[in-house]
C-alpha cells in the first residue's frame, strides 16, 4: 500500500501518553483548508512562555482528529523519534531550516522517504491503546464519542474542543477565523442545571447547546486493556446516525 498521498502525523511519546504534534506549516494549512481539521496550536514564545494570545506550532491534534484522519486514509501515524534516529543513521539530514530538519517530517516534500515512513509507522490500535492507558473511558463510551465527532465532521462543521463554553465540542459553520461559532456540543446527556446555565450562556454568546447521542446507548462497561480489531471495526463502522437536539432559551416565561 502506498503512503504518498497521506499526510504524516508525527507521534511524540508513543510509550506513555502519546500525542500527535505537527510542525509543518504546509500540513497545517492542508488539514485546515482541505479537510476542516483544526487541531490546537500549542507553541508559545520562548521569551514570554506564559502569554497565550499568540500561539504557534506545534499543532496538537485531538484524539478524534487523529482517528478520523487515519480512518479516512488521509494520514499515517509515524513514530517521530525512531524516524529521526533512522534518518540520522542514513545521514540524510541537512542543515536546511524547513525541509529535512530534525523536527519536521516532510509530508509535502518531493524527497520524502517512503521506506522510512512505512518502517516507523504506528498502528492505530497501538496508538489508541497507549492513549487510553491513563484514562477511565469504557470501550463503548470511547467508540460512541468518536462517532459523534465523526458525524459532525462528516457534516462539514469545523470542530474545536468545547471546554471554554462548558461542553464537549464547539462547532463552527466555516473556518473559525471567519465564522462565529454556532453551538456547543454535549455528548449523550446534560443535567437540568446545565440546560439553564448552558442555555443562558450559549444564548448570551449567540450560540445554542446541542445534545448528541444514541437512543439506545449499548453500555459496555469493559475497561480498555488492549484495543483489538473488533474495537477498530466498531469505531469505523457507519451504523445509524446519532440523534441531535438543539437547546435554546425560549425568551418568555
Amino acid at each position, binding site marked *: 500500500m502506498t503512503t504518498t498521498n497521506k499526510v504524516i502525523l508525527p507521534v511524540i511519546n508513543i510509550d506513555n501518553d502519546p500525542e500527535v504534534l505537527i510542525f509543518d506549516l504546509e500540513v497545517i494549512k492542508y488539514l485546515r483548508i482541505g479537510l476542516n481539521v483544526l487541531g490546537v496550536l500549542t507553541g508559545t514564545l520562548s521569551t514570554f512562555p506564559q502569554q497565550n494570545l499568540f500561539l504557534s506550532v506545534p499543532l496538537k491534534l485531538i484524539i478524534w482528529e487523529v482517528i478520523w484522519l487515519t480512518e479516512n486514509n488521509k494520514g499515517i501515524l509515524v513514530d517521530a523519534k525512531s524516524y529521526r534516529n533512522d534518518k540520522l543513521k542514513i545521514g540524510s539530514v541537512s542543515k536546511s531550516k524547513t525541509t529535512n530538519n530534525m523536527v519536521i517530517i516532510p509530508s509535502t516534500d518531493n524527497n520524502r522517504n517512503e521506506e522510512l515512513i512505512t518502517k516507523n509507522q504506528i498502528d492505530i490500535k497501538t496508538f489508541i491503546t497507549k492513549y487510553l492507558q491513563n484514562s477511565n473511558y469504557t470501550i463503548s463510551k470511547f467508540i460512541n464519542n468518536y462517532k459523534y465527532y465523526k458525524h459532525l465532521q462528516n457534516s462539514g462543521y469545523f470542530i474545536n474542543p468545547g471546554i471554554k463554553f462548558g461542553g464537549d465540542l464547539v462547532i463552527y*459553520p466555516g473556518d473559525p477565523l471567519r465564522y462565529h461559532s454556532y*453551538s456547543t456540543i454535549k455528548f449523550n446527556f446534560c443535567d437540568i442545571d446545565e440546560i439553564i446555565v448552558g*442555555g443562558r450562556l450559549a444564548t448570551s454568546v449567540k450560540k445554542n447547546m*446541542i445534545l*448528541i447521542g444514541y*437512543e439506545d446507548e449499548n453500555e459496555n462497561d469493559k475497561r480498555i486493556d488492549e484495543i483489538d480489531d473488533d474495537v477498530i471495526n466498531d469505531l469505523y463502522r457507519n451504523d445509524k446516525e*446519532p440523534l*441531535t437536539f438543539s437547546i435554546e432559551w425560549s425568551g418568555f416565561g
Partner: protein
Amino acid sequence: MSSTLIEQFKTNLIHYNLWNNVKIHNDLIISGIPSTKLVSTDDSNQIEWIMCIDKLGFGKELSIKIINSWFKQVQSLNNNFRPSRITIGIMNDDGTIVYYFVYDGITKPRQN
C-alpha cells in the same frame, strides 16, 4: 388545596404568559397557542408543546433517550406529525418557571 404541577403550569401559561387554547394532555404535556409568535423566524404564532418538569423531582440527567421519547409522545398527540421543536418547562420548588426550546436536529442559533 394545592394544585398539581401540571395545573400550575397551565395557570402560568394562561394568566402570566397569556396563552390561548391551553390544554392538558397528560401528566407531562401541555399544548397551547401563545398570543404572539415566539421566534421571529416563525411564520405566525403556532401551537407549542410544553414538557412540564419539576426540577427537584426529575433527577439530574436529561438524556437523548428521554428527549426523543417526548418528541414521540407529541407526535402521537399531533396527528402523527413530529414537531420541529418542543419546549421544556422547568419549575423550581419556589414556583419559578423557566422555559427552554428543544429543536429536533442541529439548528442555527436564533439571531437576536
